[in-house]
């Protein structure tokens, strides 16, 4: 299926050309400048253009940073305060990529919301300013080597995304924003307890200056010397805390509300990218905990939580009535798959987990974009009222179908590949019960999801429509809505067949980071 490259790449640690340090700074300053510009101009067209330009520049700069990482170096700047290794780069790429397509999609989607009078010009300006700040805070997470800074950045993503969710002043949006703010903040305070305990264990094991006591690279290098009793407690705190933010069951309760009520481009960012940032934090501390405690305790926890997430998602997908809430539960499922694959471990398991992070970040935004456009056309999110998308909006319907098949793990799409790898790592590692349960739950989600998707796409447009505003004729809601979906759909298909060499190298190196190689 896939040939691993025989890499003899030696990771060169240490100080690096200041060019990468500058790039790390400018990649953060770009969206900051765009946010400031948007807040100052107060003009809709300029706000859209500035956001799109900023997102494009971020893609270019991230490409530059990733190229440096692939060349075999861990980038580091400001006395190791910021750093980027292969694992961070793997999270950074979806942030930049989905950020760009979401900015592109926003022009059409938010523009229509504006024309329909759902929101006014002030909301548009607030939206684009928030969008840029949101991208900025997410990019700090993989760039922060200081775990305290990483926590501050994750908490900041919560605060900004709460503002984006409550853009619509409906009862549902306010309820969702409130629940998200409270649950995520309490969860993250648990995570900080854990992070501080990690740092305490580290400063006890190797006394150092105050600033570097929170640096991840130091903790990971000295993982074997840390006090196991403290690390065990700290790890549980971090898993529960960051797991809340990553939407891992049973801490996922806020997720369907928040992802369901947010404007669709924001839902795409929340599901496709923000969850990854939290999972990334879990992975970082998993590396340290596995070094101190050995792999069995962390893996058992991740396998248990992963299966629970998949189980709850399977039941909820079956009962879901709202299109976006069903997609949100599917995100809970995929976060479960990722933690299962990490729990299975081994090279193949970790490769599967990291590849799945990328795959989910491509397929889920495609689904949220398509559902956003569909709900604008049909003026509802209730799945039983949406029939015959393929006849009413042929291109969107086809893209929706591709995304839907991909998200449930149908071959030959990208998610099938990583799910297959995860399963085979489970069986290869002797986790027969967990891997068999994973198959069962995958089938259940598949059945629940397809049962709702097929009538929506192929059903008879007139048969079930009690609504007066039922859409007439064929209309795909504009090229600017199609383009971002098409980009993602192409990736969904291509990554199912072929993996580009740079991506393969990057995931390979990231697996080595997770396995604790220098």
């Amino acid at each position, binding site marked *: 299926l896939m040939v691993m490259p025989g890499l003899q790449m030696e990771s060169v640690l240490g100080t690096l050309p200041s060019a990468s340090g500058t790039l790390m700074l400018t990649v953060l300053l770009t969206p900051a400048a765009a946010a400031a510009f948007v807040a100052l101009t107060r003009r809709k067209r300029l706000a859209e253009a500035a956001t799109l330009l900023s997102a494009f520049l971020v893609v270019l700069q991230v490409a530059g940073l990733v190229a440096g990482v692939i060349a075999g170096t861990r980038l580091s700047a400001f006395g190791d305060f910021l750093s980027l290794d292969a694992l961070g780069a793997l999270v950074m790429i979806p942030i930049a990529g989905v950020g760009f397509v979401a900015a592109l999609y926003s022009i059409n989607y938010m523009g229509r919301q504006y024309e329909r009078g759902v929101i006014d010009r002030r909301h548009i300006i607030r939206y684009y300013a928030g969008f840029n700040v949101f991208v900025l805070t997410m990019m700090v997470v993989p760039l922060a080597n200081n775990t305290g*800074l990483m926590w501050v950045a994750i908490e*900041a993503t919560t*605060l900004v995304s709460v503002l984006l969710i409550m853009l619509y002043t409906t009862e549902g949006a306010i309820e969702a924003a409130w*629940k998200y703010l409270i649950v995520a903040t*309490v969860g993250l305070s648990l995570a900080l*307890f854990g992070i501080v305990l990690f740092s305490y264990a580290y400063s006890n094991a190797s006394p150092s200056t105050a*600033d570097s006591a929170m640096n991840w690279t130091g903790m990971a290098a000295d993982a074997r010397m840390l006090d196991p009793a*403290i690390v065990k407690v700290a790890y549980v705190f971090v898993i529960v805390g960051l797991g809340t933010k990553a939407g891992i069951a049973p801490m996922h309760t806020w997720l*369907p509300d928040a992802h369901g009520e947010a404007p669709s481009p924001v839902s795409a960012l929340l599901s496709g990218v923000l969850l990854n940032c939290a999972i990334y934090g879990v992975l970082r501390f998993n590396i340290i905990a596995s070094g101190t405690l050995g792999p069995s305790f962390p893996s058992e926890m991740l396998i248990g939580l992963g299966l629970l997430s998949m189980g709850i998602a399977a039941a909820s997908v079956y009962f879901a009535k709202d299109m976006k809430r069903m997609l949100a539960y599917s995100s809970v499922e995929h976060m479960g798959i990722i933690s299962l694959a990490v729990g299975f471990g081994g090279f193949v398991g970790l490769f599967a987990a990291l590849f799945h992070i990328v795959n989910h970040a491509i397929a889920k935004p495609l689904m949220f974009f398509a559902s956003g456009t569909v709900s604008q056309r049909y003026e509802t999110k209730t799945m039983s009222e949406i029939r015959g998308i393929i006849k009413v909006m042929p291109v969107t319907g086809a893209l929706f179908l591709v995304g839907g098949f991909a998200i449930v793990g149908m071959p030959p799409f990208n998610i099938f590949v990583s799910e297959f790898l995860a399963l085979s790592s489970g069986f290869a590692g002797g986790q027969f019960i967990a891997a068999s349960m994973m198959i069962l739950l995958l089938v259940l989600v598949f059945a629940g999801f397809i049962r709702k998707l097929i009538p929506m796409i192929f059903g008879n447009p007139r048969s079930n429509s009690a609504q007066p505003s039922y859409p007439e004729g064929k209309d795909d809601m504009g090229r600017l809505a199609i383009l971002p979906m098409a980009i993602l759909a192409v990736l969904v298909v291509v990554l199912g067949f072929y993996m580009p060499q740079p991506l393969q190298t990057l995931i390979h190196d990231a697996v080595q980071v997770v396995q604790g190689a220098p």
Partner: protein
Amino acid sequence: LTTILSELIALSAAGLLVATFGVVVRRSFIGWVSAYRYQSIVLAASTAVVGYSTGFWDIYAAAVLTFVVKAEVIPRLLVRVTSGVEGGLKMEANPYVSIRLSVLISALLVALSYGLVGQVLASASLDALAQAYLPVSVSLFFIGLFAMVSRRTALNQVVGLLIIENGLFLFTTALTHGVSLIIEVGILADALVGVAISAILLTRMSQTFDTMDMGSLEKLKDD
């Protein structure tokens, strides 16, 4: 001098607990906010004690920031934003758990915290500061969490969150002796922005729902 210092440590730890019980026994939002304010003043003083005994100048800076942000800015912000909200909504008329029982449960939570810290960190050689402040910080976390789930109004959930955050700050300072000023400023800024955002949300909530009873927030579900 060391005896005075250890007396100071014990006194400020006790003061923090007393101020936290001040939150538990009050019914009105204004009462909660002023109890939070006293707690934050004691927290700033405790941070200064940590600074004095460790000799790091940036802990003093953290103490000053704590005082300014938590004892001055946040209480004022909360009172001002909620001044438009009707008085009836700010009174905890019908909490899920009665005040008397709340005091009892909170006392049990304090005992639990001392037990937990002794158990979990038994292998770690804690210094005097950590021994005094860690159990208190864990109590603050538990009591804040309990306050959030035992009361009905949304305003009180914010105060519960702030108490948790105070516990977190104390935990960090006591265990790592001021990790780094940048991080502590980041945590404080997050707290401040969090309060500002919840204030906006509370105002919207009072306009949209004409109640702040959390029991009424149950529109979003799947059945």
